[in-house]
């Protein structure tokens, strides 16, 4: 596998506050990686380091280059959508298209026009006159028309209503993603992306506490709906998390084989959200 991003000992502190604590990770081609963590965990810092927007210590290679020194070159193959507010309000839709067309060698204007024609966005509107959802649609149309290797999304659907959020990921999957592309996404709304992720990374307090393929997650983590009489036995098997559901106990196990768990009760693959809660809370206690 071809690693697009390689981080070794990536470190960043703001004063005494350590945002990234010497982390190692790789992002490989063809993956959709979810970088999930609470606020202030270091997600955005990691993305900014990858995008050449911040200084850092340690080693970081993006497409074989150091983003600290080669932001402009790297951006020929890396696209980025931050939260919704970053397209300037004074920019007209048609001018935005012209600008990207004149400055980005891998932009396909026809494709962008095609994506926009499916929306209600008018070419003469200014960004400031569009709804939040439309601004994201516009940004997505601009970015999807770029033949990039890595797409970085930082809370791309923040503040959008449910229709736009669903549509955002749907068009990303159907019109953009293929095996030659790679997407790195951070979001709070994990339930929206868990179906599309191929790899999951949890980050907490500047450390990566989980970094696995989704298939591996399914093997490593099991949720068991345990009958009350089996609860003590379940507890003795070191669950990483437990909670009550309709009078039954729901236990989450890491690295325990499903055969061993089967007799305790009903087995499930945990949702990313439940896994997230367990990992964030569990290790803290």
């Amino acid at each position, binding site marked *: 596998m071809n690693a697009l991003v390689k981080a070794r000992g990536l470190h960043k502190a*703001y004063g005494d506050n350590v945002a990234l604590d010497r982390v190692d990770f790789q992002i490989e081609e063809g993956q959709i990686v979810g970088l999930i963590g609470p606020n202030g965990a270091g997600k955005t810092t990691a993305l*900014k380091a990858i*995008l*050449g*927007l*911040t*200084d850092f210590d340690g080693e970081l290679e993006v497409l074989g280059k150091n983003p600290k020194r080669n*932001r*402009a*070159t*790297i*951006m*020929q193959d890396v*696209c*980025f*959508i*931050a939260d919704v*507010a*970053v*397209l*300037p*309000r*004074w*920019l*007209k839709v048609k*001018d935005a298209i*012209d*600008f*990207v*067309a*004149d*400055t*980005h*060698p*891998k*932009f*396909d*204007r026809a494709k962008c026009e095609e994506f926009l024609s499916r929306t209600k966005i008018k070419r003469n509107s200014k960004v400031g006159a569009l709804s939040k959802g439309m601004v994201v649609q516009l*940004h997505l149309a601009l970015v999807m028309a770029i033949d990039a290797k890595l797409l970085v999304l930082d809370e791309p659907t923040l503040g959008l209503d449910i229709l736009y959020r669903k549509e955002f990921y749907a068009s990303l999957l159907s019109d953009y993603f293929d095996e030659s592309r790679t997407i790195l996404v951070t979001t709070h709304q994990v339930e929206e992306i868990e179906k599309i992720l191929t790899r999951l990374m949890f980050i907490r307090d500047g450390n990566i506490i989980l970094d696995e393929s989704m298939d591996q997650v399914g093997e490593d983590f099991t949720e068991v709906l345990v009958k009350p009489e089996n609860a003590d036995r379940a507890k003795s098997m070191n669950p990483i998390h437990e909670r009550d559901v309709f009078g039954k106990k729901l236990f989450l196990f890491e690295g325990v084989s499903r055969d061993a768990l089967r007799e305790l009760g009903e087995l499930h693959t945990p949702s990313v959200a439940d896994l997230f809660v367990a990992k964030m809370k569990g290790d803290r206690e």
Partner: protein
Amino acid sequence: MNTNIFTTQVALMKRELWEHKGFWMVPFVMAAVLFVLYLYSVGYILPTKVGLDIFVDRLMDSNPEALRKMSQMFVPGTSVPFLIMMGFVIPFYLLDSLYAERRDRSILFWKSLPITDASTVMSKWLSVFITFPAIVLATVGVLSIAMTLVMGIIVIFGGGSAWTLVWSNYGFFNGMFGVALLLLVQLLWYLPLMSWLMLASAWAKKAPFLWATLPPAALIILEEMFLDSNEFVRLLGSRLIPFGDEDSFNNAAILHGDGPGNTRLFGENVHIEGSFDTFSLSVVGDLFTTPEFWTGAIFAAACTAGAIALRRYRDES
């Protein structure tokens, strides 16, 4: 898509025009207001308070040389309010140039494109040195042609020959060339002050105007307190207002009337001594011989490098 340094730079310069509409709106509105005032004065006040025939008689009595000089001042004269206006628009533009994109966070969009920080900063300078002057010059040119046409028509109504009294002496190209040179010399002269504003714009997290003005003010006060001198305020003053006290500017010859053809680029005497027909590119060459220009240019280069570095390395949290 074919892109290169040139298409990128043109796109960046267009971006400046989209973002800073004042670049074309201020000159257009100003030209419209001036033209209306002009129409009112020559189309209403002149005929009713002076009388067209008297006005034309006076013109015909004037000595042809004075008449020629007066007609040749149409373009430079028209340009004066525009040059003053530029002295307000450009500083505010520069203070905004690297600050606004951080305030509205659009920098995250601009930086997501394969454009270097140096190209971006360069586009700000090209806007100051090319785009905005071109718009102002075009506006001055059109306005002055319109005014001269109106003046000719007034003269015809007063019974004179528009051609002899007005149009034959017009000197449009000389005038435009002179104004363009004047503009260029002024911009080059103010380069260090402008680049300081750009640096403040790149530096400020808030209130770039205060970042631009308070440090020099503090320096003036500290110098006064500890060294009991006022060299810095004199330096600043001579840069800001390069006319007046002859002695303090004797190195910048071009700026106070010792230049070729006794041109005065700056100062109140511009339309008495200013013989725009003798203007040539040598006035720019003369500026390049002054040490003031070169110290200013070095300072400007340092400020610009600082602005590029700030845009590049500053963490946009």
